[in-house]
């Protein structure tokens, strides 16, 4: 056990992968000497060489498209997209090519490329540096999407993503990069595609992932002061979604609130609300409620506090659920 920031945990996870899998390598913009704009790959080029930690030309479609080709040849690329808002030049390669190579080849070919994307807001950045595009990728069959909310998951999930035989996108909550947590480098937390109940409760289920998990925990603690026992689930995986864990929780609590930074319309929260309504119709005491960003492009930094779900927005949603 040791304590480290999430950034360091991912760095250590990448180091472990590069050490044990000689076919693995990192590629992306500025990830070499600089160590990435968030310094996630710091020191790795020095340790493993430019061949294993590769600065690419400034071309996102090029990064994903060539990674796919290298994976076809048996290599294990781990790509970094510099910022969430800059994944779109690669959207075509990810959704029409990477996600589909397996089914298009009738299962003969696979391209288990890993894509790391720092995502989400709350760091007071300028436009295209704070987005949450996970639903756009989750909608695409053939991809797997995970997002750690803490250092331990961050350390393990990147390694598990590389071991997975399918393409995996790891959305890294950038505002959590500098938060510290315990990392157990000996024992993995198990299946990366399973949700974790991170706080037990009996009156309502609050589902969150990535950047909002600590916010949800804080909201649950605040609700406890008002006498409400809120169970908090860290979803961890966005594709697939572990509906069984959510279902079991909602059957116990009777209420569901889902929170994410992305706009609610057409988002992951709607998907969870719909599925859980179907599965838990007779246990639900209230309609499933979503908390999320508004239907607008990610706003300027000076107003993002009004955009991002915070403790109060979660409490307001919980109150609405309790009002039924």
């Amino acid at each position, binding site marked *: 056990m040791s304590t480290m920031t999430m950034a360091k945990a991912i760095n250590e996870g990448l180091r472990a992968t590069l050490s044990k899998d000689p076919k693995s390598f990192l590629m992306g913009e500025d990830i070499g000497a600089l160590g990435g704009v968030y310094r996630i790959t710091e020191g790795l080029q020095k340790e493993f060489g430019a061949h294993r930690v590769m600065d690419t030309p400034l071309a996102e479609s090029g990064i994903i498209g060539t990674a796919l080709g290298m994976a076809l040849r048996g290599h294990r690329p781990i790509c970094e997209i510099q910022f969430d808002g800059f994944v779109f030049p690669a959207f075509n390669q990810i959704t029409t090519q990477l996600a589909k190579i397996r*089914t298009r080849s009738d*299962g*003969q070919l696979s391209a288990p490329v890993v894509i790391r994307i720092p995502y989400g807001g709350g760091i007071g950045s300028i436009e295209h540096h704070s987005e949450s595009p996970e639903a756009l990728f989750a909608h695409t069959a053939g991809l797997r999407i995970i997002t750690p909310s803490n250092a331990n998951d961050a350390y393990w999930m990147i390694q598990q993503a590389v071991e997975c035989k399918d393409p995996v996108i790891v959305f890294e909550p950038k505002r959590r990069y500098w938060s510290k947590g315990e990392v157990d480098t000996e024992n993995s937390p198990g299946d990366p595609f399973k949700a974790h109940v991170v706080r037990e409760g009996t009156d309502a289920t609050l589902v969150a992932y990535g950047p909002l998990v600590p916010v949800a925990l804080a909201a649950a603690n605040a609700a406890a002061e008002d006498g409400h026992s809120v169970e908090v689930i860290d979803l961890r995986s966005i594709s697939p979604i572990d509906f069984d864990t959510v279902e079991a929780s909602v059957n116990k609590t009777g209420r569901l609130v889902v929170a994410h930074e992305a706009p609610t319309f057409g988002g992951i929260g709607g998907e969870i609300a719909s599925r859980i309504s179907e599965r838990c119709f007779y246990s639900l005491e209230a309609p499933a409620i979503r908390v999320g960003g508004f239907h607008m492009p990610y706003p300027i930094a000076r107003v993002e506090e009004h955009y991002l779900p915070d403790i109060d927005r979660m409490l307001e949603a919980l109150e609405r659920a309790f009002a039924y």
Partner: protein
Amino acid sequence: MGAAQQADTGTSGSGAQVSPRPQAGNQVGNPQAGNQPPIPAGESAGVLRNTGVGPEEAVQLLDEHGGTHHDATFSPYIDKLDPDVVRGFYRDMATVRRFDTEATALQRQGELAMWVPVIGQEAAQIGSGSAMKKADYAFPTYREHGVALTRGLDLADLLKLFRGITNGGWDPRETNFHLYTLVLAAQTLHAVGYAMGISRDLVADPTTEPAAVVAYFGDGASSEGDVHESMVFAASYDAPVVFFCQNNNWAISVPFEVQSKVPLVNRAAGYGIPGIRVDGNDVLAVYAVTQWALDHARNGHGPVFIEASTYRVGAHTTADDPTKYRMGAEEELWKTRDPLARLETYLRAENLADDAFFEQVKNDGDELAAHVRRVTLALGGADIRHKFATVYAETHPLVAEELAWFENYEASFADVDTENGQGGAA
């Protein structure tokens, strides 16, 4: 400006120099007609409008009249060819043309959803495909039926995609011929990545068999950003890849001039990679320049860009009507540049083939067509369960849940059928 250019990559240990085709030739008629006028002398290609590139400016070893030309760099690649190989080129070109006719007929009869004809481009495809070694890998678009033949595919397999029973139809690992790709230019990046993978394999294990990759794309696709990015990556990493652009002058209904004001080969210099223009209807020249390029790439000297000037004689696909957008005169002109006719003239003039040979090729083609038809009509249906099974490599609960629902749903019809069968009158 020379028709062929070579950038000094600084790594070249090869003695090969790409040079312009000597101007001397025995051309008759007006080779400059058509929609690809030659570049007027004295003007800079960079500022020309409507330039283009007729075969007369490209590397040409065999002209439309069956006459041969010498080229210091490329002729050696064909001088030592066994006549059997040259006859093989003819046979393959005739075979793919016959196959194409049969596939078009199958589409007209409702057996295929669509067909993508290749007639006119046989030399570009058979020439380049034949230059590849077994370990080389080809990334086609959706029209590379001739290349498929040279990679040893049963041509009937190509039709499965167009009949709608699979997105694939063959095993790319057996043939080193990748799947057809409908998203234009996307595969050029995969080709470069694959080539970068070959370089990595060589670093990890120097006994790896050296190999190169050929990325096929069209003049329309050349406008896509992925082609640009693929060339940047290829040049940056000296990837062993040959970009093979079949400039057939048309992207569906849009003429070449809308894609580029200058010959595409000019772009190669901007990436610092050698560029060669070749008469894409001259199978010998295409074979020679592709061999040169593959040697260059395989020997560690990095990528090469080839622009093969050719023409799609028929429709873009069976859903297209070329009379709406192009002139019959242009089509007629290109028919005079037919790749098969000139090789036949040559083979006969050199006494390399006689009537019996051409008769045999025709009969074999008919047999192949019959085989393709038989196989296509006998193709079974497809089962959506197979699609459920190939979305992911590892189990995915959502897919499992939806498959279970589907099985139940299907089974409910079986129950109804049984009930009806038991209870109702016949």
